[in-house]
């Protein structure tokens, strides 16, 4: 049976994961683009990304584009799996109502 994931269930982290799993497996999103999409502050997004990265659910890739530092974020395979399990667990709670 699918299990709920406490790390992912927090609202901002749930929205981050929902956005990241919507991308293709080889795609990653720019930090500022993700911030605007989620309508959160830099600090807030940074803190939640760190938690997800520590859990191994996302990968943070810092690179230079045209000599400017940029941060890209992507869901890992483990993150995608855990997210799907979390969604399945939420659906089973509703069905058992």
């Amino acid at each position, binding site marked *: 049976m699918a299990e*709920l994931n*406490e790390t992912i*269930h927090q*609202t901002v982290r*749930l*929205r981050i994961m*929902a*956005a990241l*799993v*919507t*991308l*293709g497996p*080889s*795609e*990653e*999103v*720019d930090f500022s*683009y*993700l911030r605007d*999409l*989620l309508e959160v502050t830099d600090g807030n997004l940074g803190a939640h990304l760190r938690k997800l990265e520590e859990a191994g659910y996302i990968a943070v*890739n810092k690179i230079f584009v045209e000599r400017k530092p940029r941060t*890209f974020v*992507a869901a890992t395979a483990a993150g995608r799996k855990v997210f799907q399990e979390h*969604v399945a667990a*939420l*659906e089973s*709670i*509703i069905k*058992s*109502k």
Partner: protein
Amino acid sequence: MNVSPSEAEEALATIQTMMKKTRRAISSSGAYVLLIVWGVIWLLGFLGSQFLPKETASFAWMVLDITGGILSAVLGIRMNRGVRRSAPTTSGKRIAIFWLLLFFYCIAAVAVSWPVDGKQLAMYIILFVTVGWVAMGLLLSFTSVWWGLAMTVLALVGYFLLPDIFYILMGILGGGGMIALGFYIRYKW
């Protein structure tokens, strides 16, 4: 961890909203703008071909195509700003090469058939574009194949059965159809 059914419903709604917002913002953001831009170009260009003198209409098409090309390039650059592929694939390059080759084949076909009148030239462009569209649809998303086939049938019906209103038909139905599809993707996708 305890989650009540109402909390679960709320969480699932949050996920669905976010996924829809992301798809709209990242995946389809450029597609609908490009469709609207080229729909407006078709509409204005074909209406010009129907109602303006030949030289003025040709000049209008040239200005519209250059404007469309510049806008497409700018939109293409903006589209790729937020999302990148961490593992580059060759499919994007191959698609670009395919369209470039199709463009040269179209020029070659027109050159072989020259001289052609305005309607024949328009049909060459429409047929080559729709061949590319259907091929992309078959490879990437099957649903868009029907739009390409419908556009081909529309163009052929206009060319052979309604030659007097061919340009106006292509402008309103072809250009208008692209604009409508663009707005449909924007608001319903």
